[in-house]
């Protein structure tokens, strides 16, 4: 199962990002484990400054804005490469 984390200190865009990813997973019929990381030290630990950021299986794949639905589909798809 994919572990996806949304990095962000609880701003509105972080909520939207989590929703976009959940929706993409539901549409693709993939089960994911979504976690919201709000602790600033933890967020910075990933090297991310501009939130929201997205981490898939421990790798930062996105930062600085709400991702598009196409991007979210790529993340939830099983092992893309």
């Amino acid at each position, binding site marked *: 199962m994919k572990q996806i984390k949304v990095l962000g200190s609880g701003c509105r865009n972080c909520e939207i990002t989590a929703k976009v990813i959940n929706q993409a997973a539901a549409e693709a019929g993939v089960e994911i484990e979504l976690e919201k990381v709000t602790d600033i030290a933890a967020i*910075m630990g990933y*090297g991310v400054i*501009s*939130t929201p950021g997205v981490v898939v299986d421990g790798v*930062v*794949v996105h*930062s600085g*804005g709400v991702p*598009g639905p*196409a991007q979210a589909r790529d993340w939830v798809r099983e092992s893309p490469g």
Partner: protein
Amino acid sequence: MPDPFAWLGDLIAYSLIGLRPDSAAGTALQFFVMDVAKIFALLVIIIYLMGLLRALVSPERVREFVRGRPDWQARGMAVGLGAMTPFCSCSSVPLFIGFVEAGIPLGVTFSFLIASPMINEVAAVLLIGILGWKLALLYIAAGLIVAWFGGIIMQGFKPERWVEDYVWKIHMGDAAAQRPDTSLRGRHRFAVAEVREILRRIWMWVFIGIGVGALFHGFVPEQWVVENLGDGQWLAVPGAVLVGIPLYSNATGVIPVAEAMLGKGVAVGTVLALMMSIAALSVPEMLILRKVIRWHALALFAGVLGVSFVMVGWTFNVIT
């Protein structure tokens, strides 16, 4: 060339709704419709083109560029890149911590924090389109100067002692390099996402700005403006800065307000001082920064900026 946006404003305010062109409500509505159409059209085009060229710089990259350079170089880059980074004030805290962690001097970080909200490419193009290139250049030059010296003055007060302790302890991970998709399709997707992201963030400020501008344009009598806010009214400049401190808007949102004020004959320096004060100094931004630095430093920051904006305002009122 007839202005299509003014034409649209005329059409809706005077022809469709039937307000009179010499009434306050009529001119206010005409201004509102014209500016909403013009500013949002320009915004979409500018942000899309910048996105396509990938001309918008992320704070992570700024941090990489600036770290480990001698002071003057670091400051030059912080000010220059700050002007190209449309970062959201909600990122100020991680940005501040990230800069501190990279060993970037606090004065340089302050220079960045001053330049970034005040100047950006999007606002620059809008300024040229709406207020003309002369005023755009004045605003940008003044903003860069204030950011440069504001940071140096802050450094002189040794602000390190006011930084919250936990900030020094955070260790920042290496940013995983995200390889951008540079195909035309990838660029297009990125640009569209950028347009949506930035518009989502600023549309409200732009609407409020246009609304305030429209009310000013329609309802404030020119006579009163010239007598109280025109040339030679020295106290108008500090007044404008004080009014601007609690008010906040994005750099784009202040442009229609400036447009309306200049149209009524408010002195140029007074308008510039108000624009800068609204865009760069705000209570919400201060509250956010309070998480990383104590009040002493923030009060000093507000003081240094306030005085700088007054100087800018007076200088431009004298030379124009």
